[in-house]
């Protein structure tokens, strides 16, 4: 053996061969080749490419039924096959190594001390430090406040009065979705209607009303609401006082034992209001009754507002006043 090596060394010197044996030791651990895994990777990459081509083909075709599904399937599978190929590479083809390393130093006390000293020594010429710090902090606060002040333009921050505004006032007619005025005679029991203010915007929480008709003998409206429900027809704001969803459900008593009274229900959090007692809360999280709109029937038999709402419409806020009228 020694002889062979010697010969090789001489040959190397003579032929100027690269010095294979004197190479540095490997950095990355060694491992045996795995031809089956390589084959698997090749197969998976081929499958991924086929799916990718299929995606392009599906995209190129027009008026294909279920095109979205096929696009998602082909693109999704492309990535799934790529993922599988990479996992085989990671698990079977690259050398497996477990390295160790020291965690970084938890702290650098000397540098910490130096930083403190740099800051301290930099301020050594100041004599009235506290006063200057106070002045700097104050100025900083003023500058910051000045810089955020223009944000007030985003909205009428302090004008909370506009939250009380409604398009409903005495005499305004109730119209349906198509803008046709509601006839009192057309309002039936056991169903509910959505009404809008005539000639006013509808995309306003105060605009939509829910209108129902009950037996006038069964009404127990609060004091001061005499004549608000002509012929038993009642109108309430359609906006829930809890979280401003539309009161889109009406529970009519189909079977007395289980649903004893008609109720207006919000589908978001199931706040339930009693139309017979002035919109009081029967159930659910709402903290305030549904505002009622007094109704009147004009000479033509149309429904009109008899005044403003009994209270502020929509969700409550800090300081909202139940009886304030604007």
């Amino acid at each position, binding site marked *: 053996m020694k002889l062979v090596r010697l010969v090789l060394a001489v040959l190397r010197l003579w032929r100027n061969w690269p010095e294979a044996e004197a190479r540095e030791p490997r950095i990355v651990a060694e491992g045996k080749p795995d031809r089956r895994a390589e084959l698997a990777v090749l197969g998976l990459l081929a499958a991924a490419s086929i799916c990718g081509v299929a995606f392009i083909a599906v995209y190129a075709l027009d008026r294909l039924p279920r095109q979205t599904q096929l696009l998602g*399937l082909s693109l999704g599978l492309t990535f*799934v096959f790529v993922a599988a190929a990479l996992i085989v590479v990671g698990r079977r083809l*690259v050398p497996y*190594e477990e*390295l160790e390393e*020291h965690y970084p130093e938890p702290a650098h006390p000397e540098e910490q001390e130096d930083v403190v000293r740099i800051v301290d020594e930099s301020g050594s010429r100041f004599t009235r430090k506290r006063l200057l710090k106070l002045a700097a902090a104050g100025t900083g606060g003023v500058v910051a406040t000045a810089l955020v002040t223009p944000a007030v333009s*985003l909205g009428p921050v302090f004008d*909370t009065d506009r939250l009380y505004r409604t398009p409903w006032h005495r005499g305004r007619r109730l119209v349906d979705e198509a803008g046709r005025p509601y006839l009192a005679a057309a309002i039936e029991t056991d169903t509910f209607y959505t009404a809008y203010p005539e000639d006013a915007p509808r995309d306003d929480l105060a605009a939509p009303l829910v209108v129902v008709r009950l037996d006038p003998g069964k009404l127990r409206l609060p004091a001061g609401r005499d004549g608000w429900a002509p012929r038993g027809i009642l109108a309430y704001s359609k906006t829930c006082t809890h979280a401003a969803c539309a009161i889109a459900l009406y529970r009519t008593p189909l079977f007395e034992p289980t649903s004893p009274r008609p109720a207006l229900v919000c589908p978001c959090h199931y706040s339930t209001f009693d139309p017979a007692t002035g919109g009081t809360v029967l*159930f659910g*999280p709402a903290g305030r009754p549904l505002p009622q709109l007094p109704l009147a029937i004009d000479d033509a038999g149309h429904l009109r507002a008899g005044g403003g709402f009994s209270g502020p419409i929509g969700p409550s806020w800090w300081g909202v006043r139940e009886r304030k009228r604007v």
Partner: protein
Amino acid sequence: MIRKAVAYLDSRAGAAPLLKKALRYVFPDHWSFLLGEVALYSFVILVGTGIYLTLFFDPSTAKTVYNGSYAPLQGARVSEAYKSVVDLSLERKAGLLMRQTHHWAANVFIAAIVLHLIRVFFTGAFRKPRDLIYYAGLGMLMLALLEGFLGYSLADDLLSGMGLAIAYSVAMSFPFFGANLALLVWGDPFPGDAAFWPRMYIGHVLLLPVLIGGLLALHLGLLVARHHTQFRQERETERRVVGLPTFPGYVPRTLGLASGVAGLLFLLGGLVQINPIWLWGPYEVSQGTNGAQPDWYLGWLIGGLRLMPGFDVTIGDYTLVPNAFWAGAGFPLFVFLVLLLWPWLERKATGDHAVHNLLDRPRDAPWRTAIGVGLLTWVFLVFFFGTADRLYVYFGASYTTQLWVYRVLVWVLPVAAGAVAYRVCNELRAGERVARERKRAEEEAPYIIGT
């Protein structure tokens, strides 16, 4: 080729030492460490598909008439925003795939963050020196919830409009400044000023993603600076980290995971319908739909809003704190406050100010595990109550009965679950102690017999 590239980078950026270090950076191996990566790759998909969507979306509430190919909506008065989303979904090739993938990715993103947070909490990975990383993560979770909500609100369909109305009511319900806050953000009483939609849009596509991206960079940068945590197995210690090197061990695995996440999301986006807004219709303040459910990650809020007993805090005629505040704002703020304060609270309670690189198993810290299980049970019960109306529809379980059962359970069960968790932790530890003693005794036995 490689040599040339490395030489180029090294001579221009002095990158070779850094590259060498980065290639041999050590990643401890445990399945639960993947959760954060799933969130990361979902975020990448979100950005990619999101950019695509911005090229078609029109953030305008101006009204128009729908005249596209979906017959039931023909002639409907809709907003430009709604129309552009329906058109993107039904008229553009691959538009629906991208939109649904984006929506699914948002759901997976937040699910992965939550699971990651649970993992980090129960293993004590948030302890010094990684509490800053934890705060950045919590910040991302909060921003992600808002980001997701803005995302599905932008479509201006009936379902999302109801969600915005609730968000407006919750904003209004804040003590002292609620009404001012809502007017500031919406620019007018609900549904707000015309500028509100562009505001949501720029928030969704620029402000929040940039904030999330910034926190992500901080999260990962600090992680690299302090290194990963690890479980104690054989050679792992507080001072020595053991695991796979970035290259070649870790890169194929993590790229495989990235590709797998992408594959899953595109499969979901193509095959599993999500938020078909043409079925919900456009939003009108006067309209509502029953059976409305938000995306899963806001389920705890709808559950809370429904569970809350109905009262406003009032003085005579004046409302002080409206009902929506407690569940819509107070509840999530409280949960996040507890999570934010937790590392500090734990340091105060245990007096443990040491550096921890080794993870706890949940049993190693019975109090933390018990409180965590209690908090999780509490939030989960509130979340689950959000399904009570569906359980009524599908199984006939009385909604009112469920409500009262939950109002009791939501206080009783967390305490019980916490107590059980505490007990289980201690039993497991006692069992291990016994096993250790026995092993030692058995090892000593031959000597005793021998002598």
